[in-house]
């Protein structure tokens, strides 16, 4: 799963939805793989308004990437900054979590990631 996905995923437990601790999920024992994907600047510039930048900064540092700026760039800033486009492309689209766990800091539930697929099915006591 791509790092981009992690920005849209939260704990599947209903009782966790109202807690700010349930997002973002925290990768644990994550094995990363890199894909080479053709860069399409529009796909990055247009996804900016949909990103939760604070969560992305957390994820990025938890995965050992260099710190992202505190504020999200504007579309104009990103358009003019080729290096930043490349860096974001690399982080969001080319970096994949292939194995490991995603942990909810509210309920502590661990979602397994195997062969790049996270499993969000809940045991019956959490549904």
């Amino acid at each position: 799963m791509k790092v981009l996905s992690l920005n849209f995923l939260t704990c599947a437990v209903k009782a966790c939805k109202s807690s700010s601790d349930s997002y973002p999920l925290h990768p644990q024992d994550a094995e990363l793989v890199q894909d080479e994907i053709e860069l399409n600047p529009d796909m990055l510039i247009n996804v900016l308004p949909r990103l939760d930048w604070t969560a992305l900064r957390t994820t990025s540092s938890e995965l050992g990437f260099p710190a992202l700026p505190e504020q999200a760039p504007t579309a104009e800033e990103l358009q003019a900054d080729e290096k930043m486009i490349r860096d974001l492309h690399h982080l969001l689209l080319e970096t994949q979590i292939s194995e490991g766990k995603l942990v909810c800091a509210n309920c502590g539930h661990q979602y397994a990631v195997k062969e790049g697929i996270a499993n969000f099915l809940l045991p019956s006591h959490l549904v």
Partner: protein
Amino acid sequence: MEQPSAEAYEATHVHSVYNAIAPHFSSTRHKPWPLISSFLTAQPPGATGLDVGCGNGKYLPVNPTLHIFGSDRSENLVQLARAERNGEVVVADALSLPYRECSVDFVICVAVIHHLSTRERRQEAIQALLRCVRAGGKVLVYAWALEQGTSRRGWDEGSEQDTLVPWVMRSKGKPDATYQRYYHLYREGELEEDVVAAGGIILESGYEKDNWWVVCSSKET
């Protein structure tokens, strides 16, 4: 005899069936439906969306400029979506979706909610889809129609709406295996009623090839 819960019933007549028939089912599901393809093609580059109940992921590559996240209840179908289409996919239940609220630009949900065995659960599923889209984001829902008089199945107005549909799996050197899948067949107008009950606004709706469909959005917009 005690009635099984809706969850247990769906586990037998939906979830385990799809896991068992996954490769065979997948081999018969390659052609995207035109209306869904044009919905996806109309989204701008970089738009984010969900395909809830993505099955083998046949809609994921339709518009490669989108960020589209697929999910399905069947682990075996999700694995196929990843292996065959390099889909960005997770295993998840439509009634416990793992997505942040108001996060994506659009959602498609094709041939999924008719597998939920009570009206309450079908409406709850639509509500869950509506929760995922941003203000103004569109949700496209497809479900099997009761009115399909011209199809080989022959159901029509007046037929039983809650039904088991056999899936016959033929494999070389083995006897045919028949699996019974549960369906709720939607009558005309019912899908719209469920969307409204779920708090949605109907933007468009119609009938295409044995299915009722709606494009809706959430009320806050």
